[in-house]
Structure formats: structure tokens, C-alpha cells
């Protein structure tokens, strides 16, 4: 027993052991480490290569693009700023004054639209170069629809987390029936939409009370939450065709408001789902003690609950902002000239008479994706703290 030898880590290990067996519990062997790092490095190259290719193509000129692939700037080809200059210099209105004027135009046109029944004001015409127009539109629509979406969504999520709803099945049936009748009347019989909607609303309030007494089976919070979240299954193409017609009837077709509302509705399920998860995990004692002290529901929401869920709120806002920035299908259908967002502008560059100028397109694509990449990096910080993933563990 006095001659027994113990095998401590890192002493007297054979070569095979050093290579293939982990030195301690919780660490990896050398071969395992090499394999893992190799796979991760390969995948990193696969991920970053298209982005790298787009960035360096934006610094190439016509020969560098068409003569075959050149990979490294300054070694294979000479980088130039031609593509960037042509994007920002072809229009005369490519300066900050035009951007300021565009933002003023948005405010002025919104006010003109609101007061138009009373006081007809002429809307201002945009005078700004295309890429600045698309960029400002993307930022304005993105931020406005994100704020709108997160506000409406977190209020609804808070209500679903703290208040018991019992919508009656009978009311829902009445509503669905009246909606179908309204649509049929407007489409096939030709009654104007505002008349049929008003009649249907009035009938709903009259009939709801009567039906509510017969069909007393009611649904709960879980059903409402499931209904809101399941809206995500709806393919946008089903919604966009009627919405186009609806907006055209109201005259809102090429405006920012149309896109803001539609983007907000498209992302509402995500906000409700994520924020509901955060609110349900808050301890209720804080809110109960505040209510005992006489705070209103909105006061509790604004002063107590929202500051407690600030990381979750920030993560949700970033996620929705990225989704709104990237939205393309709605913009293709609803935005024609004045409300072009960045994706529309990039797609429009595809149709040129002389063929596609890849280097110019890459410059615009870089402008389009750099903000989202920055937002993605910011969002990763939240995700690595485990903020958003509670919802998925569900």
C-alpha cells in the first residue's frame, strides 16, 4: 500500500490519454477542443462570408466585379468609393437640409391630414434624394410602429396577466356573424362600408346582451392569449389584399400611417407573448400594496411594473424594431412612391435598363443592413442574459 501510485491530473499521462481524455470533469480533451473550435470557426466563416462579400463589392468598380472574383481589397483589387459617391451624389437634394425638410414635411402632412375635413391644406411635396428618403421613411415608420406596437402590446399583456376576462361565447358568435354579414353586404349588395359597419355595430350591442344570456359558456385569459398569439400563423399575403382595398377606400394608401398601423398589428402577437411572460413572473405583492395605497391601475403599470421589466421591454423593443425594419411584403403592396422604405428601394434598383450594377446595389444593401447588424449585436447582450428565452421554455 505504501507503494501505490495515484494518477494526478497532468502527470504521468500517456500521449493517447493526453489527446483523447478530458483532464478533469468539466473540461475537454485536446482533440475534442480542436474539433469543436474547428467546426465553430468553419461556421463563423460561413456566416460572415456573404456579409463580407457584400461589403467589399460595394467598394469595387465595374471591372473588379465583372472580371471574376476578387477577394481581398488592396491585394486583389483597388477599392474605390465610386458606388458610394454615385448613390449620394446623383440627386441634387442629398444633404442634411433635405433630411430636415423631409422630417418637417412628415409632421406638416400629418397635421394637414388630420385637419383636412375642416381646413384643406396642401400637402408638401418631397424634395430629397432617393436613398435619404428611403432611409428616413424606414426610420420614421420603424420607430413609430415599434413604439405603437410595444405600448399597445404591453398594455394588453399586463391586462391578460392581472385581470380575469370572461368573454362570453355567445358574444363572439354574434360578432362573427355580424362581421360576415357586413362584408357580404358591402361586397355583393353594394351598401357603402360606413353604413353597413355602423348598422352592424349597433346590432352587435343590441344582440350581445340577448345572446349572452342564452349561451353562457365563457372563455378565459388563456383563450384570449392563445387567440392573440395564434395570429402569427396568419400568412401576411392573406391579409394584405383586403387591407389594400380597405386603405384605398379611406384614401390612406401611400401614407406612413398605413404602414405604421399594419406593421404594428403584424408584430403585436410577439410583443403580447413576450411581455405576458415577464408580467406573469413579477410578484404581485408590490402591485397589491400599491393598490392598497390608492394607486390607479395605470399608475401601477407605469410607475411600478414597467420599470421592473425594463430589460425585457428593451429586448422586445429591439426585436420588434428589427422586424419592422426588415418588413417587405406589406410595403410592396401598400407603398408606391412617397413612402418607400429601404427594402423597396433596394428591390427597385434591380430593374435597370443597363443590367444590374452590383456595386451600387451593394452600397445600398450595406446602408440597409448595417443598422440591423448593430441592433442585433445589442440584442445579443440581452439574450445572453437569458432575458427573452423564458417565453420559449414555456
Amino acid at each position: 500500500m505504501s507503494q501505490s501510485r495515484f494518477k494526478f491530473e497532468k502527470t504521468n499521462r500517456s500521449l493517447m490519454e493526453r489527446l483523447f481524455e478530458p483532464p478533469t470533469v468539466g473540461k475537454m480533451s485536446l482533440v475534442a477542443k480542436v474539433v469543436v473550435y474547428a467546426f465553430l470557426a468553419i461556421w463563423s466563416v460561413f456566416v460572415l462570408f456573404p456579409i463580407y462579400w457584400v461589403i467589399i463589392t460595394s467598394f469595387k468598380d465595374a471591372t473588379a466585379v465583372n472580371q471574376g472574383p476578387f477577394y481581398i481589397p488592396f491585394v486583389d483589387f483597388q477599392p474605390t468609393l465610386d458606388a458610394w459617391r454615385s448613390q449620394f451624389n446623383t440627386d441634387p437634394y442629398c444633404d442634411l437640409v433635405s433630411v430636415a425638410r423631409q422630417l418637417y414635411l412628415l409632421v406638416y402632412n400629418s397635421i394637414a391630414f388630420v385637419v383636412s375635413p375642416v381646413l384643406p391644406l396642401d400637402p408638401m411635396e418631397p424634395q430629397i434624394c432617393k436613398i435619404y428618403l428611403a432611409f428616413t421613411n424606414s426610420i420614421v415608420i420603424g420607430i413609430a410602429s415599434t413604439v405603437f406596437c410595444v405600448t399597445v402590446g404591453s398594455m394588453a399583456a399586463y391586462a391578460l396577466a392581472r385581470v380575469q376576462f370572461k368573454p362570453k361565447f355567445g358574444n363572439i358568435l354574434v360578432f362573427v356573424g355580424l362581421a360576415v354579414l357586413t362584408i357580404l353586404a358591402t361586397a355583393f349588395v353594394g351598401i357603402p362600408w360606413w353604413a353597413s359597419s355602423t348598422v352592424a355595430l349597433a346590432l352587435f350591442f343590441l344582440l350581445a346582451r340577448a345572446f349572452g344570456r342564452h349561451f353562457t359558456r365563457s372563455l378565459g385569459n388563456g383563450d384570449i392569449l392563445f387567440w392573440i398569439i395564434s395570429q402569427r400563423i396568419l400568412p401576411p399575403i392573406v391579409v394584405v389584399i383586403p387591407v389594400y382595398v380597405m386603405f384605398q377606400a379611406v384614401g390612406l394608401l401611400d401614407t406612413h400611417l398605413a404602414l405604421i398601423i399594419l406593421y404594428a398589428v403584424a408584430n403585436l402577437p410577439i410583443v403580447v407573448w413576450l411581455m405576458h411572460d415577464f408580467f406573469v413572473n413579477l410578484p404581485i405583492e408590490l402591485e397589491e400594496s400599491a393598490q392598497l395605497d390608492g394607486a390607479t391601475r395605470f399608475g401601477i403599470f407605469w410607475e411600478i411594473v414597467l420599470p421592473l421589466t425594463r430589460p425585457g421591454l428593451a429586448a422586445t423593443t429591439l426585436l420588434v424594431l428589427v422586424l419592422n425594419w426588415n418588413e417587405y411584403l406589406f410595403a410592396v403592396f401598400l407603398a408606391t412612391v412617397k413612402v418607400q422604405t429601404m427594402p423597396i428601394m433596394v428591390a427597385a434598383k434591380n430593374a435597370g435598363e443597363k443590367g444590374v450594377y452590383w456595386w451600387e446595389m451593394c452600397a445600398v444593401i450595406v446602408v440597409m443592413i448595417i443598422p440591423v447588424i448593430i441592433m442585433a449585436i445589442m440584442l445579443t447582450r440581452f439574450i445572453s442574459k437569458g432575458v427573452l428565452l423564458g417565453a420559449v421554455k414555456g
Partner: protein
Amino acid sequence: MSQTIKDGQPGITPAGFSGRESWGEWFDRHSGTFFIAPAVTLILIFAILPTFYSIVFAVSRVKFTSEGLTFRFVGFKNFAKQLFGTDQVHFLGKTAPVSPVGVAFFVIVTAVVLWWLYRSLKVSTWVGMIGRGISAAMAIFLAWILGASQLSGNSIGTLYTTLFYVLCGCGVQFLIGTGLAFLCSQPIRGKNFFRVIFFIPLMVTPLGVGYAMKMVADITKGPFEPVLRFFGLENWVWSASPWSARLVMMVCDSWQWIPFIFICILAALENVPRDHIEAAEVDGASRIQIFREIIWPQIVPVAVTVLLIRAIEAFKIVDLPNIMTGGGPGSSTESMTLHSVYVWRANDIGTSAAIAYLLLILTVVVCASFFNYVVLGQLRRPQA
């Protein structure tokens, strides 16, 4: 579960009665309704109402006239055109000469589905049986189309192209994403660096991804040209043959969506308690054994939820096929959404709405079936 704050009676405060309820107190008593009303109203007007309105489009012949829109009721003609009529080859694929392989496949799948239906007669309620009947009908229909078109050597249409993107795409993305998450959950340095890098493709605008991939996959000017020349493939045009175009489309879609699965599964893997794993390591289990026996059973609920969410999003694919191939050689890479967009551009709004509705039915039946039979089954299983 959610808890409630008990709303007080009007006029009663902890200090005693204070007479009639004020305006603010009335608001507060109905605060739940006021909080949820904007969201419900928005969804009703801009999601539910258009869905119903879309049915009207789908069953009529719509024309833009000087006074606006005219609808002429034509019944199910728009749908029949897609399923049986002139557009059948575009939508379903060529189903004409059916080979024995196709028939055999169809018979086998139908037998399995009917046997499953029979088995569930004993365990399910009558409402459940209706749901199972719908799922079974969809499965049999899809098996017939697959057997008659692809397995008989014919071409497939936009329906199966969409299903290819969803099923094969989600499968590949799930395998690679889980593998990456497993690699990243090992004790390595630089985990956050890899997490940031791997997350970026998910957030890049799909349109930008489409153009970037179109440039990268270009045969003559793209970066793979020397590689192709080395393999003697410099005359191969990936966009000329249907299946290679679909494959490239799936690869590019996977480039964008693998990060989603990676992030979710990585979070789940990091929540597996370390002492189980270390106990197994001390007992001498290899990493693969640990993954299969300890880690995987604990992350299966998250995995199927992530798969469901990814499948729901995958049905909506439209940007990538539009940009990279414009629908592919012929219409081989058109997804159903893209098919609907092209028909809209040809000013046939009724058919466009009909195709959109068929996509909605397909998505709802497939996702609801997956949710009911796989996800709920996993979530109901008691955790080890």
C-alpha cells in the same frame, strides 16, 4: 398562473365610504377592458376582418372599375382552377402518369393514417375526432400529390415547393442548429463572441440576404468560381435545373434561420443542471452518450416548440425566391406566397386571394396537427 388584484367596489376605500364613484374610479374599475381594448380592436380590424374579407375575394371575380371594386360571385371556381383546372400543373404539379412507386407510397401512407385514426377512436372526444379527421384528410391528400407527382417522375408545383422549404428546410436547420448549440455549450472560451456572430444572419433583412446570396452564388463572377473550375463544374448553372435551384434556396434560407434555432436551443442547453452532466462524466460516459441520455430528454419540449415556431414562419417564405431566381426555372422555386403575388400582379385578384387562402388552410392544418400531436404530447410528459 396569473393572479388578480381584486377591484374594489365603487365608492369604498380603505378609509371608508366616499359617496358616488368618480370618473377616475370608473376608469380604474374597467381598466382591464381599457388596457386590452386597443390590441383587440387592432387585431379585429386589421387581421380578422381582412381574413373574412379575403374569402369574399376568393369566391368572386374581382375587377377594378372607375367606381372602385366590383365583385361577381363565382363560387369555388378560383379554387377549382388551382386544384383541378387550368392552373393545376402550376399549383399541384403534374399528376398525370402515376407510377407504381407513387401508388405504393400513397397506399402505405393512407393505411398508416387510417390505422392511427382507428386507434384514436378510443382515446379521443368527438371534437378531437373531427380535428384528427381533418389532419388525416390533409395527410392523405398530400401523400396522393407527392406520390403522383414527384415519386412518379413528374414535376411538382408550388404547393410541394412550399412544403419542401418547410419540411426539409426546418429539418436541416434543426439538425445544424442543435449541433451548433451543442458545440457552443461545451466549456470553451469565446462563447459570447460566437453567440454574437452566429446571431447576426437572423436579423439581416431577408431582401439583403437574397441579393447577397445571389451575388455569392453567381457562377461566373461569384467567389466560388475558382472552386467550381477546380471541380470541372464551371458550366453548371444552378439556376437552370429545378431541384438544384430549390436546394440553393433552402441553403440560403437555412443561412438566415439556423441562428434562431441555435439561440433557443443554446439557452435550453445552458439550463440543463450541470451536476447531472458532471456525475455522468465521472462515471465515464462519453459526450455523445451524455447528450443522448441526459441532455436531449430535458430539452425536447423546448426543441419541439422551437420547431413549431420555425415551421410557422417558414410557410411565409417569399423574399428569397423572389430575388434569387424570380420564381426559378419556370415556376420551380415559387412558394405559394410568391405564386399569389405573381397572380396579383397579373390583375387576377380573386385567384390571388384563393391561393392565399389555400396557403392559410395548409399552414393551419399542418401547424395545428404538429402542435396537438407532438408539442402537447411532449409538454404533457412529466419532467424527469
